[in-house]
């Protein structure tokens, strides 16, 4: 739980870095927030977010493999919680 909260906090911090604080001020980002509908994230911004995640968590999270099976609409329709859950499960697996 604590780790999930940490990952959520880190993902939100990266989103702020990518999009800019001004654009996120009015949005309370939580697990149910969608990248597309709620955050109106642009596809180029998701690329930048993916890179930051890779930089933070490295190959353990293997984000390219995670999104390889999805098309852009599926990626953008994900919630922040979906992404955090994927990261959490991969980190848990790597720790075993």
């Amino acid at each position, binding site marked *: 739980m604590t780790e999930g909260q940490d990952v959520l906090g880190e993902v939100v911090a990266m989103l702020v870095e990518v999009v800019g604080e001004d654009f996120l001020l009015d949005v309370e980002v939580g697990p149910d927030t969608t990248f597309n509908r709620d955050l109106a*994230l642009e596809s180029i911004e998701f690329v930048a977010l993916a890179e930051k995640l890779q930089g933070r968590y490295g190959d353990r999270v293997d984000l390219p493999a995670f999104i390889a099976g999805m098309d852009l609409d599926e990626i953008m329709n994900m919630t922040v919680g979906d992404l955090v859950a994927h990261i959490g499960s991969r980190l848990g697996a790597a720790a075993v």
Partner: protein
Amino acid sequence: MPEVTARGTRFHVQTMEPAGAAADPPGGAPVVVPVVVFVHGLVVDDLSSFYYTLAGPVAAAGARAVLYDLRGHGRSQRTATGYGAAEAVADLFALLDVLGERRVHLVANSFGGVVALNAALARPDRIAGLVLIEAYGPAERSGEWTEALLNTLGKSGLVLEYERLADQLLAIGWRRGGRKAATADALINGTSLLADLAALDPVPPAALASLPCPVLAIYGEHSDVAEAGALLARTVPDCTLHVMAGHAHTVLREGTAELLEVMLPWLAHHAGTAVPVATATAAPSGVRS
């Protein structure tokens, strides 16, 4: 490497390493990995249009996929000037120098074709092959292709300038539309982009006939630039033209699967990437690479 500074300008670059990349054997010759560089289109386009379509499968086939945002586009720095073909070609080679890539294949979409063709003509020693998707550039006469492009861009420029569309979209909380429109506004009305495009010369038949590298040209059947594809097929010595039935200009987004079906075997043959499984059994033995 997310950001690369070349020619004093900050470029956003993404690299996808080839699947199953082998380390250089100790004491042996280094493993040669084919490099494919993707060049996107104008104003509202950026590297993400390749990132989610062709780049992943190309990396999975064993190439290093390099994607970058053109000057002023996506997350690259927006300079006041420097949007002509010669500048874009200089940007490309300066980037490749920083990345340590000597000889590459280019995959270009729409206006990216202008950059790719001029790059191959300027430095034939460094461009091994071209995949041109709905590429602008080839034309018999000056103005033949720039006119339609400029009309479209100029009109959107006027709309953005006088109706303040970007501000309005932002005001109603439509962030994505607002940000895209704001970027387009800044590029069209705040830089030399339109003037630089107006000064562009097409790549004429004589130059196309001198292209030494192989070209795969892919155009939509109903595209308004389809004539450029026909001209490539008539003039470039080693050109394969594939026309996508039922498609217009937006083949990259709407015809991704067919594009890959055509492009991956071509890259396997010319760049030495993996032969796609579906065609591997049908391919004749002893295919040249």
